């Protein structure tokens, strides 16, 4: 008796094969999100939620004193980190694609291996790099560029942006390296042959054909970095509240699960809005899907 006969006897449709995957998605993604969504409309106790349903969590979150500042900080750090990561990532990915030659696989492996190291270890590494006795200050001192340690680097936005960029960079490089693959060097040679110098080739060929992947890489790392709540605690200065930290505080310290959930969904909504805007922008510019020739 073959599988299709069994399926017919058990009255399974052809979709039965996807059931385990669907179950996984429901258990690990949909259920937590729906639970949290319900929390955000319930009334908060201390480390608990209960009926009645209300919209006051959203009201209170939006009008709370700290929210605006945290959003500003998150957006600023996210844009800075994702922006720097995309610019540097573009440089690295294009170098890998067009100039690295035999080094290509070595460098790609190094980038992937760097992602294996624990997130916390990498954040601590920046303390060692940027501290008063750190590597950067030691080098500056040895070269005689400074006479006393530069102390503004650690526990500052600078340190946070450095670490977040470092964390985002491998994702950007991998996304863009993949995106560069169909852009055969012959396209760039054709552009040069038609009179385009290096800058013009970037502006007229590389950036437009890579617009969608660049947008994806930027948004993905923007979400990753602006929502980060660990790095600012270890490397940031005082008074630089971020949205992720606010959410965490609501859940762990204040015990206000409902407001934590409401802020989570406001953040999620904001990110979705970013995606929609980017998608529309790319569609209007007709750069949303580039169909490479056969």
């Amino acid at each position, binding site marked *: 008796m073959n599988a299709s006969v069994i399926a017919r006897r058990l009255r399974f449709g052809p979709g039965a094969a996807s059931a385990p995957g669907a179950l996984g998605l429901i258990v690990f993604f949909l259920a937590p999100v729906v639970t949290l969504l319900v929390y955000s409309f319930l009334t908060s106790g201390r480390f608990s939620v209960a009926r009645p349903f209300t919209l006051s969590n959203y009201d209170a979150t939006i009008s709370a004193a700290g929210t605006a500042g945290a959003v500003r900080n998150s957006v600023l750090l996210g844009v800075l980190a994702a922006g720097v990561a995309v610019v540097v990532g573009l440089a690295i990915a294009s170098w890998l694609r067009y100039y690295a030659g035999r080094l290509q696989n070595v460098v790609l492996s190094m980038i992937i291996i760097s992602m294996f190291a624990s997130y916390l270890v990498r954040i601590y590494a920046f303390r060692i790099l940027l501290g008063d006795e750190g590597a950067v200050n030691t080098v500056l001192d040895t070269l005689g560029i400074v006479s006393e340690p530069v102390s503004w680097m650690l526990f500052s936005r600078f340190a946070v942006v450095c670490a977040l960029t470092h964390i985002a960079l491998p994702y950007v490089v991998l996304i863009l390296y993949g995106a560069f693959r169909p852009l055969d060097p012959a396209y760039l040679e054709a552009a040069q*042959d038609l009179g385009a110098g290096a800058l013009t080739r970037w502006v007229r*060929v590389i950036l437009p054909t890579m617009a969608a992947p660049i947008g994806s890489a930027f948004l993905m790392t923007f979400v990753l970095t602006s929502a980060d709540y660990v790095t600012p605690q270890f490397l940031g200065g005082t008074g630089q509240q971020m949205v992720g930290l606010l959410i965490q505080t609501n859940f762990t310290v204040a015990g206000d699960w409902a407001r934590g959930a409401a802020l989570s969904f406001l953040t999620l909504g904001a990110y979705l809005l970013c995606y929609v805007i980017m998608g529309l922008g790319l569609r209007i510019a007709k750069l949303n899907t*580039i169909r490479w020739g056969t």
Partner: protein
Amino acid sequence: MSESNPPRLQVNNVTQRFGDVVALDDVSLSVNDGELVSLLGPSGCGKTTLLRIIGGLAAPVEGQVLLSGEDVTHVPAHKRPTHLVFQRPTMFPHLNVFDNIAFGLRISRVPKAELRSRVEEALSLVRLPGYESRRSHELSGGQMQRIALARALANKPQVLLLDEPFSALDLKVRLAMEGELRRLHRETGTTIIFVTHDQREALALSDRIALFNQGRIEQFAPPWDIYQEPCSEFAAGFVGDANTLTAAVSGPGGATIGGQPVSLPGDPHAGTYTVVLRPELVTLQPQSEPGPGLAGVIGDLAYRGSVVSYEIDIEGLDRPLRAELAAALAADMNVGDAVRATWRGADCLVLDADDGAS
């Protein structure tokens, strides 16, 4: 062209090395205005390397490239009045046909009205008017190469460079494109350098063919001369089909091939020679009829419609002799028949044993 005008393109003693590999070895070439010259040769012979050097995508380690007498050896591609059509389609996928053709014109800031008319002129040259708003995925391979031709021609290049532009196309499309290219060449009078490994294509298209072998130009001549009077065994074998035989000459009138007496043109003095014989110049007659020629047995035959190809096993030769007869003349000869292969004395070409022309 008057004597005082320099040739459109001059390549002087160009050598190119990649590591230890010599890709081009002291190559010189001069191309007149309006000429269509093919760079023909097997893959890896340096023909594409030379094209890239002419186009400015690479600089040679030695030698010079002159365009209309001006040294452009170290002028990069984007500042050179040459334009290239690549082997693989390179139509920018984010731009439609119009914007692809206008790409170079926009960079050189051609005014809008002129830009429009030049794009349209280029499109009608390649017979694709009305295709302005198509994207690359809406075009066939042949159409994409036409757009690439239009894109290059719109910039009115001093020299148009074509790097095997039709080699990825189906045979039928390819033959049509060859016709198109001949027409384009006639209509525009553009100087064209055409790289190909297909000798048939080179013979059909070129005013002159530069035959490449291992980084050197073996022969540079009109197609007729290349075919009729190849300068070497390589040239004879690469362009068209050829039997290359070894002839021993012991004295005046004493030439033999595989031990059988033959007569060679020009009565060469004693020695060993390479003799080139095109299959279509060989005629066959039954051995029962007396006469000169190489006696042998038909080992194989292939009917090809207008012609029939024979392989004749001849005693004393390590390879069968190939003959090609018009089908009408071939009716009564079959495998196993004893025949005599003959040719008119002037139809075979005698090369020195060291491959130089006799």
